[in-house]
């Protein structure tokens, strides 16, 4: 990209990652540069795909940047863009919105809704709220939080309205979007005069 940096994704099932240095000269001698890693064996070159690195080598590396290819042709040195490797999950296991039952409040009280999703490790999710106050832009605080646990990562978005108004009554939706789909949870808020 414009920063001279490409991201290579490693999913849970990947057995290898490929540094996609493609060349137009099939027998060109292309070298792979990488950060200090323990084990070099198993790294192979294929002039139609690039360099292939076995997954265990990636897992044991202390850092995942600094990967790039270099070659010399006609006395001139060429260097690929820089590659950054990122472990990426994709699964959203479940989404919950607390409190689950409808919320009844008096004008002036504080409303706190907690949207929590359990996701596969390294899964990035965009958590967005839609709620009546969004149009009338009443003062709303939204705090994200990400907590890797023992078997999955818990992602949380906490919506707070410090002093509710009658116009804050209505349905509140939490939309959790991962790479492939969006899951939504909803609860009802009723504000009495």
């Amino acid at each position: 990209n414009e920063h001279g940096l490409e991201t290579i994704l490693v999913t849970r099932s990947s057995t290898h990652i490929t540094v996609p240095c493609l060349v137009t000269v099939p027998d060109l001698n292309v070298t792979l540069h990488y950060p200090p890693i323990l084990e070099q064996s198993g790294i192979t070159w294929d002039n139609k795909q690039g360099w292939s690195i076995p997954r265990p080598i990636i897992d044991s590396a202390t850092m995942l940047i600094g990967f790039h290819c270099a070659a010399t042709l006609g006395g001139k040195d060429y260097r690929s863009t820089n590659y950054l490797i990122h472990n990426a999950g994709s699964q959203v296991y479940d989404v919950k919105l607390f409190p689950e039952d409808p919320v009844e409040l008096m004008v002036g009280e504080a409303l706190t809704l907690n949207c929590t999703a359990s996701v596969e490790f390294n899964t990035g999710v965009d958590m967005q709220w839609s709620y009546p106050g969004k149009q009338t832009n009443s003062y709303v605080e939204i705090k994200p939080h990400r907590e890797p646990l023992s078997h999955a990562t818990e992602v949380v978005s906490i919506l707070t309205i410090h002093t509710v108004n009658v116009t804050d009554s209505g349905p509140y939706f939490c939309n959790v979007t991962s790479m492939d789909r969006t899951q939504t949870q909803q609860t009802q808020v009723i504000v009495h005069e």
Partner: protein
Amino acid sequence: AYLNLDILKSIESEWRKTRCMPREVCIDVGREFGAPTNIFYKPPCVSVYRCGGCCHSEDKQCRNISTGYLSKTLFEITVPITQGTRPVTISVANHTQCSCLSKL
């Protein structure tokens, strides 16, 4: 009876090693800045100094009495990846002086 001076020396050295002072720690950037849940940092942590160590009374806590800020450059990955990866510079609190302050 007299206290063995070697024991006293080793206890004094342990007390000095564990005193309240700035100590190098790893700070998870996403957590420190409350980053959205679709953003990852590479590296995920930065190294700064924060007050740590033990005070000799439960009504005291080891706190920073002077703080600076360090600039750190990291890669920021936004998911979905199509939004790309870019270097970002953040400013992280770095404790420079600490003291055992009273909680009350």
